[in-house]
């Protein structure tokens, strides 16, 4: 049985190609993951907003030891979205092609690994790709 959670709306929107984050109506903090309370001022007046998913590559790694159900190597990192929040994300690029500060876009994609996402298994996941500097 799958419960309906607060983040349901994120996954529904992601299925439609939109990346949702949260904004605080009191202090204007933008944050991720979505939660009913602002982590900056602790206001409960928060809303969903759409991010265009663009940002900068804050850090990244190529992992050579991976879990069962994953390829032998994975590339992942932290992206700082233009709106402010950082998130951990898979990266759909070759490790050798990446540089800190690269412009990237976090976008929905079909989940590729054999890992049990439970209630979210029918939804897409997300990954970052590099984009041109002026985007």
């Amino acid at each position: 049985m799958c419960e309906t959670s607060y983040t349901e709306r994120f996954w529904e929107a992601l299925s439609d190609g939109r990346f949702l984050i949260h904004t605080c109506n009191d202090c204007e903090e933008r944050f991720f993951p979505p939660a009913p309370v602002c982590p900056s001022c602790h206001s409960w007046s928060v809303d969903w907003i759409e991010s265009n998913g663009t940002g900068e590559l804050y850090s990244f790694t190529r992992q050579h030891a991976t879990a069962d159900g994953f390829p032998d190597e994975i590339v992942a990192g932290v992206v700082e979205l233009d709106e402010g929040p950082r998130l951990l994300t898979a990266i759909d690029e070759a490790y050798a092609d990446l540089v800190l500060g690269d412009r990237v876009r976090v976008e929905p994609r079909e989940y590729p690994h054999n890992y049990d996402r439970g209630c979210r298994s029918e939804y897409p996941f997300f990954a970052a790709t590099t984009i041109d500097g002026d985007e």
Partner: protein
Amino acid sequence: MTVTRTASVAGIGLLPNGTYSIPERELAIDVIHEALEDAAVSMADVDGLYMPSPRPWTKQKFFSTNLLHLLGLEVDRTIEVSTGGTSGGKAFQTAVSDVRSGAVDTALVFAVERNSVIETTGPYFDYILSTFDANFESPIGMSIPGVYAQSMQRYCHEYDVKREDLAEIVVKNRDNAAADPDTLFDKPVDREAVLGSRPIADPIRLYECPAPCDGGAALVVTSDDGDGSDTSSETEGTVEVAGLGSHHAASHLLMTRDESITELPAVRKAAREASRDGGRARDEIDVYEPYAPFPHIEAIITEELGLVDRGAGLEACLDGRTAADGEFPISPSGGCLGRGHPPMVTPLYNYVEAVRQLRGTASTQVLDANYVLTTSEHGHVNGATATVFAKGE
């Protein structure tokens, strides 16, 4: 509760890091026996039992309850802590607080762990994945070295640190541990061997990761003053637990908000509190035994302790200032990189090392050691404890 008594470590026990083919509870009984003998305390005197929760793959659940029955032990306090690498630290600090307050007189703290019984790519990795945000992060497949690889990358980037030089921290720690028969390795490594070991998560190499293994440790904590039943003075040299500190930042693994992942505020704040409590400034301690699972983390902790400026932690090692005979010795035991690393036990190994340093019986002994500061941490150092030990009168 207010502090009314001084807590001291009356006895220590330690199982050498390695591989054990007996159940955890038998390891526990062995190491508890050793600590009680060292403290010259009888089992019947123990009135508090403190431990990290066994790892999820340990067969025996309700571990402390099972053990109390086996040992025929009635106690006023028990606790099993489950916060990753700080579990042992919090178990110990709870014991110290209970002894200080008078809730218990003789606290027994122990940790046992076997990593040799679990497949690293299967159930162990599943457990690691489950420590990330289950919704948004676990499906990415990130490992713990994968997390620390990114702070190593940022550290080199932000402070223009030469990545290859970080290997020297591993060289120092392996060297410190080499002569100690209780540690996993009996040979040192050189810089080339560290940098030539296989990549685990770029830029981190195998020898820069703490090696998982089996082990166990136990400490008996008693009160010095109080009712006159001071047992610790019967053993060689009393070791006071002088200061306790603890802090958790509003972060989870790599997810900080505005702060750089190259800063470790939990260590900074925990160490500050422990120093204040222990009456000794955090940069005026004789020996440091931090829980530093990767070389750049030891460098950053050196900075967070106020010993050097930001970005200068590695240089302090390269200049020999962190060596056992240096200006501020760091990890003379070898730390988790030199000793091997059962994370539930590592904080207790740090305490055992502190006691040995203050008794003058450490394998890599620092001369005239009167104060030792230790830390524990979990996640990407999101939470930390700091504990100051002092040589008794």
